[in-house]
C-alpha cells in the first residue's frame, strides 16, 4: 500500500503545470516527443551536461520535491537511462579509434545518472536506487517504494519512471520490430492491423508515503509477470483482483496499455474482458516506451483527483459519475506484464 501525495508528468502532451487534454500533440515520424518545460529552477551550469532523460527526470522531480523536507529515498525506474549519451560515447570510440575521448558522455551514460542528479541537486544523502528491468523497471521501483514505506512508515520517498527516445535507440528498437514501419497517427494507432507501435518518452514522478491523510490516491497493489502466454496473464489477473479488491469493491475504470501492435492485442483483449468495465487507453498520447506505465499511474492519479476523464482516451463504455478504483494493465513486447490497482 502506497499513498501518493503529489505527482508530476512530462510527456508528449500537456501534462506538466497546466494540464490540458483538449489539445493533442500529434505523432511525428512515428515518435511522440516529450514537451520539455522551461525551468528556471536548474542553473545552466548544472543543465549543460544533461541529456534529455536526465533533464526530464530532474525537472519533473523538482516540481514536486521543492517544498519537501528531506526525502528518505529516491527510487527511479528507467530501462535505458542515458542512452543518448551512451551512444554518443560509443560513436566517439569508433570515430576516434579508441583515442583520447571526452569523458562527459561516458559519465552521463550511466543508468543511475537521473537518480544521482536528483540526489545531487537536492543534497540528498539517503537511499538512491535505479531499477533498469526493461518494461518492468518502473514496476520494480514501485515494489521497492512499497517496501520502503513499510520499513519507514513516517518517511516520504520520491518514486519515478523516466525514459527518452534516443536517435540510436530508436533505430535499434525499430530494427527489432517495436515500432511501425508505416507512418502512424494518434487517432488511428489502434485501428491499424500491423505490428509495432509509435515511440514515446517521458517522466512521471510521485511523492509517496504511508500516510493516508490528504493523499491524492492510493496504490493498493502491484503485480509483475514474465510470460508470453495470455492464459497465464488471465489467470494472474483474476487472482490479483480476487485478492486485492475488497468485498463489494468494484472497478470503475480499466486503463489499458494497448499500443496498436497487432501482435499484442491478445493480451489487451483478455484483460479487458476480465476487467469488464469502461476501458481507457493512453499510448496514442504518450507513445510506447519501457517505463510508459509510470505515466499510466500518473493518468490514474489525475482521474481520481479531478474525477474527470478525457473523452479521447475512452475505448469503450461510459465515463462513470464517480471514479474510485482503477485497474492499470501494461505489457512490454508481450514478455513483461504488470497490474496496478489504484484507488481514491
Amino acid at each position, binding site marked *: 500500500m502506497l499513498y501518493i501525495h503529489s505527482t508530476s508528468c512530462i510527456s508528449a502532451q500537456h501534462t506538466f503545470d497546466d494540464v490540458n487534454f483538449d489539445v493533442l500533440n500529434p505523432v511525428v515520424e512515428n515518435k511522440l516527443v516529450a514537451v520539455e518545460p522551461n525551468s528556471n529552477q536548474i542553473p545552466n551550469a548544472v*543543465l*549543460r551536461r544533461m541529456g534529455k532523460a536526465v533533464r526530464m527526470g530532474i525537472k519533473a522531480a523538482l516540481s514536486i520535491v521543492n517544498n519537501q523536507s528531506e526525502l528518505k529515498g529516491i527510487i527511479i525506474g528507467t530501462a535505458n537511462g542515458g542512452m543518448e549519451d551512451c551512444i554518443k560515447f560509443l560513436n566517439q570510440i569508433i570515430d576516434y579509434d579508441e583515442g*583520447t575521448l*571526452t*569523458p*562527459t558522455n561516458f559519465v552521463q551514460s550511466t543508468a543511475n545518472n537521473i537518480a544521482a542528479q536528483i540526489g545531487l541537486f537536492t543534497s540528498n544523502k539517503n537511499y538512491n536506487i535505479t531499477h533498469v528491468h526493461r518494461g518492468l523497471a518502473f514496476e520494480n521501483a514501485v515494489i521497492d517504494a512499497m517496501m520502503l514505506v513499510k520499513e519507514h512508515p513516517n518517511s516520504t520517498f520520491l518514486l519515478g519512471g523516466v525514459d527518452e527516445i534516443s536517435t540510436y535507440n530508436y533505430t535499434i528498437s525499430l530494427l527489432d520490430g517495436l515500432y511501425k514501419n508505416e507512418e502512424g497517427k494518434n487517432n488511428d494507432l489502434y485501428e491499424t492491423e500491423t505490428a509495432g507501435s509509435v515511440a514515446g518518452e517521458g517522466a512521471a514522478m510521485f511523492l509517496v508515503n504511508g500516510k493516508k491523510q490528504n493523499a491524492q490516491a492510493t496504490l493498493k497493489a502491484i503485480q509483475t509477470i514474465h510470460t508470453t502466454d495470455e492464459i497465464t496473464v488471465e489467470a494472474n489477473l483474476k487472482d490479483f483482483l480476487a485478492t486485492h479488491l475488497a468485498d463489494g469493491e468494484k472497478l470503475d475504470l480499466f486503463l489499458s496499455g494497448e499500443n496498436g501492435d497487432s501482435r499484442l492485442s491478445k493480451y489487451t483483449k483478455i484483460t479487458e474482458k476480465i476487467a469488464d468495465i469502461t476501458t481507457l487507453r493512453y499510448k496514442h498520447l504518450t507513445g510506447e516506451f519501457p517505463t510508459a506505465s509510470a505515466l499510466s499511474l500518473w493518468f490514474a492519479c489525475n482521474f481520481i483527483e479531478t474525477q474527470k476523464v478525457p473523452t479521447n482516451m475512452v475505448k469503450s463504455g461510459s465515463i462513470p459519475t464517480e471514479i474510485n478504483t482503477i485497474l492499470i494493465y501494461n505489457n512490454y513486447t508481450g514478455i513483461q506484464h504488470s497490474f496496478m490497482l489504484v484507488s481514491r
Partner: protein
Amino acid sequence: MNKEQLKAQLKQQIIESLNLIGVKPEDIKDDTILFGEELGLDSIDSLELIVLLERKYGIKINDPKEGRKVLIDINTMADFIEQNSSKQN
C-alpha cells in the same frame, strides 16, 4: 595567429566543448580562474579541456595533474599552447 587571437579562439572553443550555456566569450577574462566560482568547472571539465588541447592543438597531456597546472586560466593555456606548438615547429 597572434596571442590575442589565440586567446579569443580558446574562449570560444572552451564554451563550445563544455557546453557553457549562456556564457559569452567576453564573460571569460584572460585571468578568470577556470576552476573557480565564476565558471564552476570541475574535474570532468579539466579532462574535457585536455582532450580539446589534443584535438585542436595536437598537444597531448597524459597526466591529469600536469593538466591542472596548465588549465589555470586563459593566459596559462595560451602560454602552454604557444610553447608546445613552437616546440613542434
